[in-house]
């Protein structure tokens, strides 16, 4: 028994294949990153999203190209599914100048103006006020957009979280707050960080429509995100989703995972969103082994291209070290 997807759920073949592909793009990309970290191609802190793929996959389905996104340091999948080319993400991991942040940001600071990805913020909860500001600016400039703001359960303990939710409600900011609750703030369990562990309640007290969602069920996430995003667009008011999920791998590559039992990890792996979707579609007779093989082949090719691009990338000349501290005059 692996599926966490509701037994009554159903998905069309095309859409199911799409969701499966998106989740596998993130999963395999992260696995490749771990491998490349082991090979010392990627350095610094590296935070992987393995296990949480249903969250970003489902939420991204609800966003439009003109919407804005603010994410955290665990954001490779967000960049990838937002449409930032895997090549430029991987080049960034390598620290190459062809990377989406020219090698200045690395794994934790993927930025992309073209897709309105405002980082990659590695200060926990540091992105929340930013997202409200971007959302309000969009509205004041007459844009019909929303801003999706991703953060973890750890952020809910920060002052910035509470100050920002209050202001988002007070100033009616069109923000979709997406709390990726993976149950651990770095290595400290939710129960050891919060007395009230139902994080969706914390948003509700600020007058923000809020709900908790099974973050291991990509269909549930997508449905909730579409509903919430539609509501933000319709009302201009913020909405909050607590997406309950789990990371299968360590917090970062330096984490020996002394704070959780292997049995707990194994238990959550039984809820892996990828096999859950596969099982559902197989049950509905809409997925064949050949489909999965084709997706895996496509994803592998995409990652291979990304790695080849990063390998072939170049180092920014050291003479350029102090660029981008201040804006450069155009021309």
């Amino acid at each position, binding site marked *: 028994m692996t599926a966490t997807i509701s037994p009554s759920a159903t998905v069309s073949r095309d859409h199911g294949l799409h969701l499966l592909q998106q989740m596998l793009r993130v999963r395999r990309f992260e696995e490749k990153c771990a491998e490349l970290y082991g090979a010392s191609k990627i350095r610094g802190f590296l935070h992987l999203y393995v296990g949480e793929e249903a969250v970003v996959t489902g939420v991204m389905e609800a966003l439009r190209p003109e919407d804005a996104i603010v994410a955290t340091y665990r954001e490779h999948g967000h960049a990838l599914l937002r449409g930032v080319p895997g090549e430029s993400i991987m080049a960034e991991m390598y620290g190459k100048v062809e990377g989406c942040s020219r090698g200045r940001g690395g794994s934790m600071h993927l930025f992309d103006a073209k897709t309105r990805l405002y980082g990659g913020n590695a*200060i926990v909860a540091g992105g929340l006020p930013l997202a409200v500001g971007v959302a309000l*600016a969009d509205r004041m400039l007459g844009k019909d957009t929303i801003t999706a703001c991703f953060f973890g359960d750890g952020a809910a303990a920060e002052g910035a979280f509470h100050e920002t939710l209050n202001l988002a409600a007070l100033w009616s900011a069109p923000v979709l707050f997406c709390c990726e609750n993976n149950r651990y703030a770095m290595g400290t369990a939710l129960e050891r960080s919060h007395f009230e562990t139902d994080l969706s309640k914390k948003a509700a007290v600020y007058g923000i429509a809020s709900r908790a969602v099974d973050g291991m069920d990509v269909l549930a996430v997508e449905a909730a995100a579409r509903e919430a995003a539609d509501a933000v667009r319709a009302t201009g008011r913020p909405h909050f989703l607590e997406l309950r999920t789990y990371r299968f791998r360590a917090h970062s590559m330096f984490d020996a995972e002394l704070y959780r039992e292997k049995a707990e990890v194994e238990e959550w792996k039984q809820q892996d969103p990828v096999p859950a979707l596969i099982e559902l579609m197989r049950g509905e007779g809409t997925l064949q082994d050949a489909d999965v093989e084709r997706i895996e082949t496509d994803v592998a090719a995409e990652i291979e291209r990304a790695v080849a691009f990063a390998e072939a990338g170049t180092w920014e000349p050291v003479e350029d070290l102090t660029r981008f501290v201040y*804006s450069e005059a155009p021309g």
Partner: protein
Amino acid sequence: MTATMAAPATVHTTYREAIRAALRDAMQRDERVLLMGEDVGRYGGCYAVSLGLLKEFGEERVRDTPLSELAFTGIGVGMALGGMRPIVEVMTVNFSLLALDQILNNAATILHMSGGQFNVPLVIRMTTGSGRQLAAQHSHSFDGWYAHIPGLKVLTPATLEDARGMLWPALQDPDPVLIFEHGALYNMEGELAADAGPVDIARAKVMRPGTALSILTYGGTLFKSLQAAEQLAGEGIDAEVVDLRVLRPLDTDSILDSVRRTHRVLVVDEGWRSGSVSAEVSARITEGAFYELDAPVARLCSAEVPLPYAKHLEDAAVPQPATIAAAARQLVGR
């Protein structure tokens, strides 16, 4: 023989009114400009700077904030990223420490972290400095701390001209600019050119030319230094007084030029001595004009103590005209 009466060339105003005029002017010129901070709207500004602006520009552009320095400063960063031209007002520099994360980790850093993709055209105004018996959580001078941070520009208007003229160029700057308004100057009165407008935000300015020594200073100690210079002039000591105006990037050329004219330097700084603006200025002089010096660079800073409430103690903690004059006399051997 009578000429036709010319329009008055100057208006009588205050530092506070000059800033208000700059705010109004900026908001009239550019619809993207908005002001937000604690009590900026209905209250009229903690120091009455923004009095009347809410009525003139409305709630959307003059936003009263809750006491949430971190969030509203960060929202300002986001608004700037989103294409607006926000002015965030922080009541007191001590409170800005609650927003330091957003100022340093986001405003000053995002351009670089994003490889040049996202600039942050944000202006943050805050009140700095002592002189009002506000004790140790409302009186400090952290201007120099902020001047330590690459990615920021730091302005310290001390004159009516700069109070009126620094805001607009700061808003034109593509990157975050911090403006430190000295709290003891808000009531300062004087004459300002009727057509006063934008000023340069790059250069230091010689406020009083002299030959015997250079007094380099900024913000709340500028006029104290000018008073000291008057006193010294009566004693036959001709002091040059330079207003640094911009703490980051420091106008090293103007500093060194002054050293080459006088060969003796006193740096007056309301910040604490250790790791201060005065330390940086002194180091640059050592690096750039060591052989021009006839005496070691002298510094007069605030005592290294959290500022006390009692007036006599507060006065004793920060540079005053008399102590500036005394330090100058010592420097020239008088």
